[in-house]
């Protein structure tokens, strides 16, 4: 149901036909498609096990996508409130650190995948806007002998307050995008922002399009993480940067036990009391445990073709920012 809808969306968005044909993520289509430039990649997928994990449950791969969709559909409205409650507001610092690590230059084209409610996109826009304003001020200060009218005209004539930077928010879940759009409207973000419905494993974009690709707290929900990484590699321009903010493994045993205790005892209770949804938050904490460690994920990113891959653990390893370049 969700698959056919996204198929229709992509085909009427005028993407390359081969991609939109392959876009329907039913595995039957994968096996029936033969030949062409995609053949070699598909052959390697045939031997893939058809079972995967959904938290601590075992489900088939087709099921997982649908189940994850349902989880985020039900949490979408309370997503931000719950993030604040569960992380005691620390998730804001993590996301800020991601942008500071990114240090986007003016004119950056950013693709934020699984960016549903827009946290990364809004921070990016704030950053580039502040940068642009600072640059403007510096320019004006350098030109000492302008009259007041000329200065006023300079400020007024400026149409693009972002210096050419753009962000595209892509998410597979309609409810999350809806919440994001409502937030953007409420906080008056208009310029330089676009919202697209798409699957991280089959991005509806051409090759070599973006300067930076970010995925914050989204990649562990993807059924085939390696495919998502390959797609990230494909849509980035040469010289482009891949950045991933994700929950990771805690190294310190004492903190790990406290973290486990908090995750499994408190978080589902918070989910039930605040959002009326125990199961989604149980899935959340289980999916965190299922995600590979910092080193393993680094290897997976390297396998997708990225170079100079590095990671930085935050808050004793509760989250990590992985970074790689397409060179």
């Amino acid at each position, binding site marked *: 149901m969700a698959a056919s809808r996204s198929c229709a969306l992509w085909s009427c968005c005028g993407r390359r036909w081969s991609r939109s044909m392959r876009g329907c993520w039913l595995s039957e289509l994968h096996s029936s498609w033969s030949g062409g430039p995609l053949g070699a990649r598909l052959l390697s997928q045939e031997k893939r*096990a058809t*079972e*995967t*994990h959904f*938290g*601590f*449950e*075992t489900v088939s791969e087709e099921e997982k996508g649908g189940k994850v969709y349902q989880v985020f559909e039900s949490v979408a409205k309370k997503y931000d409130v719950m993030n604040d409650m569960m992380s005691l507001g620390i998730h804001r610092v993590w996301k800020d650190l991601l942008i500071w690590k990114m240090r986007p230059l003016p004119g950056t084209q950013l693709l934020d995948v699984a960016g549903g409610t827009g946290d990364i996109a809004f921070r990016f826009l704030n950053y580039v806007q502040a940068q642009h304003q600072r640059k403007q001020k510096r320019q004006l200060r350098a030109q000492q002998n302008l009259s007041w009218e000329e200065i006023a005209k300079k400020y007024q004539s400026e149409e693009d307050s972002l210096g050419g930077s753009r962000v595209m928010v892509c998410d597979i879940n309609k409810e999350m995008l809806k919440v994001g759009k409502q937030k953007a409207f409420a906080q008056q973000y208009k310029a330089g922002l676009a919202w697209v419905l798409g699957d991280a494993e089959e991005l509806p974009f051409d090759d070599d399009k973006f300067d930076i690709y970010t995925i914050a707290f989204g990649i562990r929900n993807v059924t085939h993480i390696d495919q998502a990484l390959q797609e990230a590699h494909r849509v980035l321009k040469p010289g482009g940067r891949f950045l991933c903010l994700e929950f990771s*493994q805690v*190294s310190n*045993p004492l903190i*790990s*036990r406290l973290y*486990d*205790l908090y995750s*499994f*005892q*408190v978080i*589902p*209770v*918070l989910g*039930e*009391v*605040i959002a*009326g949804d*125990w*199961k989604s938050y*149980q899935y959340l904490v289980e999916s965190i*445990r299922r995600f*590979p*460690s910092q080193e*393993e994920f680094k290897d997976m990113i390297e396998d997708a073709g990225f170079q100079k891959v590095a990671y930085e653990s935050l808050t004793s390893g509760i989250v990590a920012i992985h970074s790689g370049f397409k060179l």
Partner: protein
Amino acid sequence: MATLLRRVLRPLRRLPGRPGPAADVSLRPRSHGAGLLYPDHIPTSPLQKALLAAGSAGMALYNPYRHDMVAVLGETTGHRTLKILRDQMRRDPEGAQILQERPRISLSTLDLGKLQSLPEGSLGREYLRFLDVNRVSPDTRVPTRFVDDEELAYVIQRYREVHDMLHTLLGMPTNILGEIVVKWFEAVQTGLPMCILGALFGPIRLSVQSLHLLVSELIPWAVQNGRQAPCVLNLYYERRWEQPLRALREELGITVPPVHVQGLA
């Protein structure tokens, strides 16, 4: 040591379906698969139950429209009382039948056409009228999730489904005043901590006039009726649809309410 373990497990990690290190299993209650006593069961540790009880109590007071929070409070605090209720049901012949046959009151099990055709003043007809006037449905009740005994889970589910019957029997509407009166009746009848808490803290949100009315007339009436009536959980309502409401009230010793509370009389 942890990193060594992880390095050893690394080739196995990439395969799906591998659980985490065994040491942490005690902190991770499973909420799916084997170990479920009934379909919606979520096993919880004592710490989780305590947190749930506190959280749901707070949330129910903060937002009285969160009926699911009241339900969760009942489930997490009522274990001992539910046992007493269940034992008492076993001793009563009609109650024992209910425990054995496990009838459920929901739109799928009720024959609405038949209830509609019953004569005025009968239990079935009045119950249907109550549902219509107050625009409620028996299907909006949350299923039991946090009770760790299958039979007790049924007892609390039955208690929830009988709650609507009590509204009909006592002639109380579903506004906040009516709900508090029914809670007082239930607190006396069942002794469930959730009922007692609801009865004591519910009036916080009432206006002064309603509070005065409640304290002077309605609570004494509810308490008196609760005391002298036999346990309402022991009534097989599904077999009593045709019984006239007045006759049922007489059988239970429930008197007419002293004040006409707005809504269904």
